[in-house]
């Protein structure tokens, strides 16, 4: 297995991008990444693209060929593959690209992620997202994604004394981080009171506990570490890449307050990277809802089980805290174009480890982690990066 590095990154502005299409966004991010890596189309061996549901959101499938075509690569006839694992599609595309390079099968590989969600009504978007849960045995009875995470939150509150104010602190922090990130969907500071006053979606989760519906695309370029310096002064090594699965339906899980897929993926990724959780300097975790960030920092081993709410309240996970989490603003405030999210996480960590994260830079960050979840925890991906 060869060591793999990121040699170029690109990401569009996230948000309601009514003026651009799926293909516009993916080529915009792609050009940024290719220019960043200083490569040409002829250097590329393969493309992987994470996309959850273009079929539902823009009535377009066959996204692999589409992105190669609109990236201007059609005459090179490159292999281009779309992968899907609901909201973890981006993380999965990154992992497929890592495997292609690590195995020696390919040298220069593109990992892309894209979702265009605002071409349909918010009700249709919610229904498309609900397809990440068990359509027959959850959604059919009226389950929504906020409802599934709300039920995890209720049990976490009962078992560990977590409060809604602690969950709200996650949203407050991630909105603050997003204000420092030019590509973020929201550039507005919020307070715990704002979260409390926003309408309830599924008790105890309010609108401001939820990530938004977003458009966006992100791209990273991978190369074998041994030749990465030819393209880039500060290649970022991918020292751990792991994926795990669990039951599709939340109700079938061993424990409703732990994402076992995260625990298993993290354990494998830490072992590959030969590090422990306390060595991580900066992490992007899957905060589709505020409770999800609390579960994630527990399941990734950053804090003890049940201590996640307290960590948010005490500022441990804010910029300047012991372990800054979601410096991009996270899914909550940077935005969550589902297929793009996993690649955007890698983009943010690469900027942090290169020292190019501007006003949200974590000082001397050397090791970063990205955590991407599909559905309510049926899939999890953990990647670990090193300068």
């Amino acid at each position, binding site marked *: 297995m060869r060591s793999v590095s990121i040699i170029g990154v690109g990401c569009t502005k996230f948000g309601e991008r009514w003026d651009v299409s799926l293909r516009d966004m993916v080529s915009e991010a792609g050009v940024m990444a290719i220019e960043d890596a200083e490569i040409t189309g002829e250097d590329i061996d393969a493309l992987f693209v994470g996309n959850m549901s273009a079929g539902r959101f823009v009535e377009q499938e066959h996204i692999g060929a589409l992105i190669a075509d609109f990236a201007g690569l059609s005459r090179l006839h490159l292999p281009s593959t779309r992968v899907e694992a609901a909201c973890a599609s981006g993380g999965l595309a990154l992992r497929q690209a890592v495997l292609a390079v690590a195995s020696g099968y390919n040298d220069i590989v593109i990992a892309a992620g894209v979702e265009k969600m605002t071409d349909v009504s918010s009700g249709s978007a*919610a229904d498309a997202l609900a397809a990440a849960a068990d359509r027959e045995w959850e959604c059919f*009875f009226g389950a929504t994604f906020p*409802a599934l995470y709300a*039920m995890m939150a209720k049990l976490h509150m009962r078992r560990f004394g977590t409060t809604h104010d602690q969950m709200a602190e996650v949203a407050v922090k991630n909105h603050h981080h997003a204000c420092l990130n030019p590509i973020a969907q929201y550039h507005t500071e919020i307070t715990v009171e704002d979260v409390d006053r926003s309408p309830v979606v599924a*008790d105890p989760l309010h609108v401001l506990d939820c990530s938004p519906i977003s458009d966006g695309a992100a791209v990273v370029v991978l190369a074998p570490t041994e030749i990465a310096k030819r393209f880039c002064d500060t290649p970022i090594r991918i020292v751990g890449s792991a994926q795990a699965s669990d039951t599709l339906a939340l*109700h079938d899980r061993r424990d409703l307050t732990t994402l076992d897929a995260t625990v298993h993926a993290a354990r494998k990724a830490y072992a590959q990277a030969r590090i422990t959780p306390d060595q991580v300097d900066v992490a992007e975790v899957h905060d589709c809802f505020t409770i999800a960030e609390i579960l994630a920092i527990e399941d990734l081993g950053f804090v003890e089980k049940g201590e996640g709410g307290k960590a948010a309240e005490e500022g441990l996970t804010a910029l300047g805290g012991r372990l800054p989490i979601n410096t991009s603003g996270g899914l909550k405030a940077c935005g969550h174009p589902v297929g793009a999210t996993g690649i955007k996480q890698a983009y943010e960590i690469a900027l942090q480890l290169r020292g190019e994260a501007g006003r949200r830079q974590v000082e001397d960050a050397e090791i970063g982690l990205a955590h991407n979840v599909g559905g309510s925890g049926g899939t999890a991906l953990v990647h670990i990066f090193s300068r």
Partner: protein
Amino acid sequence: MTTHAPRFWRSIPQRYNLKGTHCKRCDEYYFPPRNLCPNCRRGADLEEHTFKGTGTVITCTTIYSATEDFERMTPYHLAIIQLDEGPKVTGQIVSCPDGVKMGMRVRPVFRILGKEGERGIIYYGTKFAPMPKDEEKGPTKDSADCSGIL
């Protein structure tokens, strides 16, 4: 979302009568039915089992904002219920003017789950309601122990 009739028709035994699976080798119960037991990963020792439908609410929420198909029902209660034979299911809780609480005992009720417009199929199936006071008893020795979960 519009569904063609076969998709609903083929799950009528499960949705109306809670028919699931029992693995004789592992003595584990599954709902919905499975063709392979996730414990022993074999299919030969599976038999049909009709669940009683009584159980305990493990966790719950009240939904105020739903997908298009359920928007007109809001607000409604959704819960994860541990059936007395062991498996957990997701379902709506109805007829509960005092709200839903974790640990609440529930029984199955036959209800309309949804319909596809004025001319489309009406879906029926199982929802859950609080156990009437005079029948309310804790889980029996045959039923699952939820104390560890709650």
